[in-house]
C-alpha cells in the first residue's frame, strides 16, 4: 500500500472532515468526486467558488469541499445562494443538495430561481428517498417502491426532475447516473460555464437505505440497474424522461442561452445611474 503520495484531488477536500459520513456504495462520494474533478479541470479559483447545500446526506458535501461553503436549513440552499449570488455576482455559486431538500420542502425556491434565471448552478443527488432520516418516501420515490413510510408500496407519482427544471426555465438541464462519471464531470464543467440557472440531476445509489428495501442490497446492484436501464438521449424531450425500472433516459436535455437575472439587474442599476438628459 503506497500512501506517501496524496490522492490527486485531495487538495480540494477538507482533510479534517474526511472520511465523509456516507455509507459504503453511496453515490454522493462519486458526485463529490466528479464536482471536484470538474473544478480541477476548469482550474477554478476556489476563492470565487461558493458551495451551498441543504439538509440530507448530500448536504454534507458543502463542508467537504475546501472552498467557501454554507450548509443551510432544510430546503433553503437555493434561496440562500440567491442572496450570495446577487450580493457578489463574481462568485460562482453552486448548490449541491438532495431530491427531498430541493423538490419537496424546497420545491418552491427551485422553480422560482429557475424562472428568474438567477445564475446559480444546482446539482441534485436523486437517491429516491430520504436517506438521512432513515429512508422515508420522497418526491422522487418511484411508484410502488417500499420505504419506511410506504410499507405497502408508494402510491405517489414521482417528479420527473428534468422536465420540471426545463419547464421552469432552466438554461441548462441534464441527467446522469453515478456510473456516467465521465459524462457527469464534463456536464458539470458545462454547467459551471453557463450563464443563468442550470441544473443537473444525478441518479445516485442508496443501497443501505433505499436499495435494500427494493431488491437492490448493494451499491453494485443499483449501479448495475443504472448500467442496464440507462440510455443516452441528448436533447430528447424531457417530458418523456420519467425514470422507470426499465429505462433511465440520461443526457443533456436543455442547453440554451438566456441572460441571467443578476446581469439584467446590474445592467438596470447601471442604466438608471447614468444621468439622463432630454432634448
Amino acid at each position, binding site marked *: 500500500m503506497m500512501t506517501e503520495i496524496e490522492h490527486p484531488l485531495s487538495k480540494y477536500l477538507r482533510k*479534517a472532515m474526511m472520511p465523509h459520513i456516507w455509507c459504503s456504495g453511496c453515490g454522493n462520494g462519486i458526485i463529490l468526486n466528479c464536482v471536484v474533478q470538474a473544478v480541477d479541470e476548469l482550474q477554478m479559483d476556489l*476563492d*470565487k467558488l461558493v458551495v451551498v447545500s441543504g439538509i440530507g446526506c448530500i448536504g454534507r458535501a458543502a463542508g467537504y469541499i475546501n472552498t467557501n461553503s454554507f450548509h*443551510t436549513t432544510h430546503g*433553503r440552499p437555493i*434561496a440562500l445562494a440567491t442572496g450570495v449570488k*446577487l450580493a457578489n455576482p463574481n462568485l460562482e455559486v453552486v448548490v449541491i443538495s438532495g431530491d427531498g431538500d430541493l423538490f419537496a420542502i424546497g420545491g418552491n425556491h427551485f422553480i422560482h430561481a429557475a424562472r428568474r434565471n438567477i445564475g446559480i448552478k444546482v446539482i441534485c443527488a436523486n437517491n429516491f428517498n430520504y436517506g438521512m432520516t432513515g429512508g422515508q418516501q420522497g418526491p422522487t420515490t418511484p411508484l410502488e417502491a417500499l420505504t419506511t413510510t410506504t410499507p405497502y408500496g408508494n402510491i405517489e407519482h414521482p417528479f420527473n426532475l428534468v422536465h420540471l427544471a426545463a419547464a421552469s426555465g432552466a438554461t441548462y438541464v441534464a441527467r446522469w447516473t453515478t456510473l456516467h462519471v465521465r459524462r457527469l464531470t464534463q456536464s458539470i464543467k458545462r454547467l459551471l460555464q453557463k450563464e443563468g440557472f442550470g441544473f443537473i440531476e444525478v441518479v445516485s445509489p442508496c443501497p443501505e437505505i433505499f436499495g435494500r428495501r427494493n431488491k437492490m442490497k448493494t451499491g453494485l446492484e443499483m449501479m448495475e440497474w443504472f448500467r442496464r436501464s440507462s440510455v443516452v438521449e441528448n436533447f430528447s424531450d424531457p417530458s418523456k424522461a420519467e425514470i422507470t425500472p426499465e429505462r433511465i433516459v440520461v443526457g443533456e436535455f436543455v442547453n440554451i442561452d438566456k441572460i441571467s437575472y443578476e446581469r439584467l*439587474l446590474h445592467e438596470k442599476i447601471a442604466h438608471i445611474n447614468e444621468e*439622463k438628459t432630454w432634448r
Partner: protein
Amino acid sequence: MSNTVKRKAILTGAHFMNGDFACAEGAIVAGCRFFAGYPITPATEIAERLAERMPEVGGIYIQMEDEIASIAAVIGASYAGLKAMTATSGPGFSLMQENIGLAVMTETPCVIVDVMRGGPSTGQPTLPGQQDVMQAKWGSHGDYEIIALSPSSVQEMFDLTVEAFNMSEIYRVPTILLADEVVGHMWEKVVIPSPENLKIVNRKRPNVSPEKYLPFMPDDNLVPPMACFGEGFAFHATGLTHDEHGYPQTQNSEVQERLVRRLCDKIRKSVDKIVKVEEVMLEDADVVVIAYGIVARAALSAVRKARAEGIKAGLLRPITLWPFPEKHVEKVARRAKKIVVAEMNCGQIVREVQRAAKETPVMFLPKLGEDPHTPMEIFEGIRRNNP
C-alpha cells in the same frame, strides 16, 4: 427636462415621510445594500421605498417567493459581504423564525423589521399590535439571545434602523426592529443628519492570514471577526453545532456547551452597551409607567397630565426590548410605589417587568384591536394606582 436626478445615499435634511419610508432611508444610511422581502401589510411600504432607492445607491432589491426565502437570501447576502435586511409583519415573521435561528447559529449580521399588526394568524392586517414581542425573543427553536429595538416615532424608525444595523454588525447577531402599524404608517418630520454626524459601524474583519483564520474563534468580546465569501478565507458555515473551524460537531456535547453559551454571553455580557431606555421624570416618581413603541407616546402625555394634577408620575420607555433593560426597571422599582405597564397585547413585556420589579406591585393596562391606548386611558391607570 431632466426629471430623474439621481438621489444621494444620505438625504441629509428635514423630511416629511412615513415610518416605513424612514426605516428604508435609515437602512440606506446604515449602509444596507441588500433587501429581500415579500409584500405584507403593514410593512410593504419599506419594500416599495427600497425597490426605488436601492438601485439608486447601487444596492440590491429582490422580491423573493416568500418570507422564508427572503431571510435566507438576507443571510446569504450578508455572508457575501453586504449589509442586508428584510421587512415583514406577524405572519411573515413566523415564517422567518427557523432561519432567524440559522442567522443566530451562523452569527450572521442582518436586520429584520417586523411592523407588528393584530394577530394571531392573519388577524387585523391594517391595525397595530405589540403581540410579537415574545416571538422576537423566543420565536426560533433552541437557546439564544437576540437584539430587538422598539421605535415610537418616525424619527426613531430612522434612527433605530441605523442602530439596529450597527448592533448586528458589532455582535454578529440578527437584530429585530419591532415597529408597529401606527409607527410604520404615521407621517412625521424626520431629520436625516449629515454623514459626519452619523455613527455607522461595520463588522470586524479578520486580521490574520487565511491559513490562520478560524471563522468562529471569538475575540475578547466573544464575537468572532467575520470574513466574507470571495475574500480568500475559504471557510465553512453551518446550522449544525460547530467548532471554531466551523466544522460540524454533532456528537460533541462540550462543543455544544461552548458554542451556545457564547452565543448567549456575547449579548448578555454586553447588555449595558446595548440597552437604551428613555427616562422621564423618574427621580421622584411614585407611579412609573412603562410603555414602548407607539403606546409610549400616549403614556408620556398621560404622565404630564398626572404631574399637572399633582401626581408624581414618571415614564420608563425601553428602546431596547431585547435584551430586556432589567437593571433600569429594578432601579425605578426600588423607589416607586406602583408600576403601570401599558402594551397592545394580553401581557408580554409586563412579565419581564414583574420579574424585575420584585415586590413592587405592577399594574397592567392591556389593549387589543383598533387603536393604541389613549392618554386618558393611561392617565386613568396612573390615577387609580396613585397611593
